[in-house]
Structure formats: structure tokens, C-alpha cells
């Protein structure tokens, strides 16, 4: 369990690090601006259309938000800073994937808890089922078996 949480954390950190590694350049090459705008736009939710990124949406507001992202990147923002800029205006809602923080802990850890509880429950059931012996035969049962074996039972 702890190992799993650790790998989860490491995964999340490595996902964020390429953006951190980027230096604030004096002028960002145009092809970089384009690809980075694209990448950042894919992580930002369109606020007028349910569950679409501003990259996918052709709503006018999404278009203007893409342009704002591009402007921020051209101005020397890192990808994270550009994202943070919009988050500051629209809140966590604008992020396509919810950040791991106090009010989202259940969201992130919930499935894990379910899996752990589920498997504990499943395993404990398996064990009790395997060790449970069938009830002893009653006198009546024995009589019927004896009858069947001797070929007298017609039932």
C-alpha cells in the first residue's frame, strides 16, 4: 500500500517536472510556443462547455483562453505558470485533472481504499468458504445412501 502511494506520488511529480525544467527563455521559438500552447490547452477545461479542454473546444471563449495561454507562454511563463494563471482566475475547475489536495484526497485515494477493502473482503470470504466443511450426514441420509448402494432405493 505504501509502495503504491509512493509510486503514485513519484508518477505525479515526474509528470510535472518537464515544465519545471524549462528555463525562462528571452524569446521562445515560435514552434515551441505552438506545441506548448497546445499541450497546456489540453490540460485546461473549457468553462462554457462541459468536460472539454480548451484545445478541443471551438467555443469563442475557449479560443480566447487559448490565445491567452499563448500570450503567457510568449511572455516567458513556464507551462505550469501559464496553467496557474488561469487557475487563479477560474479556480480548480479549469484544470482537466484535479490536483491532489485536501478536498480531493478522497477522489484520489478513494479507488485505492475500495480496492484494498474489496480484496480484504474477498480474500477473507475465500478462506472461510474453503475451510467450511459440509454438515455431517444425518441418520436419515445414511440410511438413504445405504439403500441406494444396495440397489433398493427407487426414488
Amino acid at each position, binding site marked *: 500500500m505504501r509502495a503504491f502511494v509512493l509510486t503514485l506520488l513519484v508518477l505525479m511529480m515526474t509528470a510535472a517536472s518537464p515544465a519545471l525544467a524549462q528555463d525562462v527563455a528571452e524569446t521562445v521559438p515560435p514552434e515551441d510556443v505552438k506545441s506548448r500552447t497546445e499541450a497546456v490547452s489540453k490540460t485546461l477545461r473549457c*468553462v*462554457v462547455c*462541459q468536460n472539454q479542454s480548451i484545445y478541443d473546444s471551438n467555443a*469563442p*471563449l475557449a479560443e*480566447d*483562453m487559448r*490565445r*491567452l495561454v499563448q500570450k503567457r507562454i510568449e511572455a516567458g511563463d513556464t507551462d505550469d505558470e501559464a496553467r496557474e494563471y*488561469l487557475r*487563479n*482566475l*477560474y*479556480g480548480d*475547475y479549469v484544470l482537466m485533472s484535479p490536483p491532489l489536495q485536501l478536498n480531493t484526497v478522497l477522489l484520489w485515494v478513494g479507488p485505492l481504499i475500495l480496492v484494498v477493502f474489496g480484496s480484504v473482503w474477498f480474500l477473507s470470504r475465500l478462506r472461510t468458504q474453503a475451510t467450511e466443511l459440509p454438515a455431517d450426514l444425518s441418520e436419515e441420509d445414511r440410511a438413504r445412501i445405504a439403500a441406494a448402494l444396495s440397489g433398493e432405493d427407487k426414488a
Partner: protein
Amino acid sequence: MTLSRILPVGVFLVLVAFMAIGLTRDPSVIPTEMIDRALPQFELPDLHNPESRVRDEDLTGEITLVNVFGSWCVACLQEHPTLMDLSRQRTVRIVGVNWRDKREDALAWLEKHGDPYGRVIFDAESDLVIEMGVTGAPETFIIDPTGRIRYKQIGPITAEVWREKIRPVVDAIAAETEAAS
């Protein structure tokens, strides 16, 4: 064995509760981050007078109602009579933000339906609108004299919304300002 009976029912009830709460929420209403923040800095053209520029400091000094609208916005027509009334009663200064519109369309719209705005900011490319965290029109902000955003209304202002929600905010700001002076 009773636990194994109760547990699934319990889990089910918790799910039902979560979903019931979820159903009562309007997913198009995004909680605003803007309350008690200062107005963003901006400089945009005036709708009526393209050479003239409107800046954030033009919205300070008195209680101001900032209303985001567009000639393309259907729900804006619904609140228009309320704004016209407010403008006639001179309750607060009303400033319009004409969002993503064509200048001539906006002017024709105001000509046709009446112009409640003391001033109209022309925001064709959502510059100010995004900085204020707007998600749709109409949206209405109440700005206090120091230029702080105190209230945001998503959707049309009806007479009832004004009376129940916005008016109390305006009165509270007025009382504060009086106490301070």
C-alpha cells in the same frame, strides 16, 4: 453476518446521498474565485467612442455595477428591463462590458432596447472578461468604491435577484463607506 448485510445497503445509501446532492447542483455554475479581489488592471476602448479608453481606475470611486452583455446574448434581453429600471432610479453607476461583439451590432442593440449603461467597455477578444473569470453572459459584478469585487451574479438579474441578492450587497457597501468617512 449482519455486517455483511448492512454494509452493501450502507454503501448504496451513501452513493444515493452523493448523487442526490450532485443532482441539485447546476454544473454550468462554476464557483467564482473573484470575490474580494481587486479589479484586474485593464485598458480597453469605449464602445461609443473608440478613441477613448476605459481603465480599471475609471470604475472606482463609487459603487459600480458591471454588467457583461452582448447583442448575441439571449438571456441579456431578459434582464434588460431590470437594468433600465436601475438606471432610471440612479441606484448605482452601471457600466457595461460589451463582450465579443461587433461594434455596430452592439450599438444597434442598445439603440433598439435602450441603453442603461453610463459607460460601455468594448471587449471584443475577452481580455477583461477572462481576467474577471467570466464564464458566460450575462454576468454582473458589484464593485465597491475601492475597486474591490464584492459580488458576482451568474445569469440574468431579475427584479427579484436585485431585491434579494444584489441590493443587500450594495446597501452593505454603502453602510461601510459611510462608516469609514
